[in-house]
């Protein structure tokens, strides 16, 4: 079974602080994704990567950076966290082809005060 893990699972941050969300996958997938989930919006793509060293902007990248140091790891970085970034963040991995399934992690609940 495909495995995507996220850490931390819950995080409270202060406005203006730096937050790093981590994701690890053991599927050996080339593609990895960061989404946020908000009521009324479903899941929206923040950043994605199609291999180690690459990052691409998704649909809502403002205020976020991403890092893909290896095949297994993909981080989402909030340099200056704001309350509007309070959300649930999901990481996913997927194989090379768009018609194939993405596998999701359990999510990270972030509260920015």
């Amino acid at each position, binding site marked *: 079974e495909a495995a995507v893990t996220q850490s931390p699972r819950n995080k409270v941050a202060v406005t203006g602080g730096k937050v790093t969300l981590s994701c690890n996958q053991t599927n050996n997938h080339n593609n990895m*994704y960061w989404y946020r989930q908000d009521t009324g919006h*479903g899941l929206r793509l923040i950043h994605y990567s199609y291999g180690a060293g690459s990052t691409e902007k998704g649909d809502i990248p403002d205020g976020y950076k991403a890092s893909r140091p290896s095949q297994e790891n993909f981080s989402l970085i909030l340099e200056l966290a704001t309350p509007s970034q309070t959300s649930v963040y999901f990481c996913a991995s997927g194989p090379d082809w*768009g018609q194939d399934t993405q596998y999701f992690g359990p999510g990270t609940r972030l509260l920015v005060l």
Partner: protein
Amino acid sequence: AQSVTQPDARVTVSEGASLQLRCKYSYFGTPYLFWYVQYPRQGLQLLLKYYPGDPVVQGVNGFEAEFSKSNSSFHLRKASVHWSDWAVYFCAVSMGGNMGYKLTFGTGTSLLVDP
């Protein structure tokens, strides 16, 4: 640009009744369509996926979906709902291809099951 509309934010059905969750997509070309389910406090899990071919797709736990190009729809169905189906359901579309393809999700439909 591709998009997905799930017009029903919440659907309530009685246990044992049939279910249909609606999904409309907008896409120029051949879409790949997915239904995912999210149980409370969990990530998303794949229910079923459509590749061009047979318009009716079977998924897990008795779910199926029917693709209609003329209606731009991909509705999810189940003949008899169980209380364990209480969850949020997301429809998604992908343009396929490689190099970091993207899924576009609908806003989700919360399914509530009356005992």
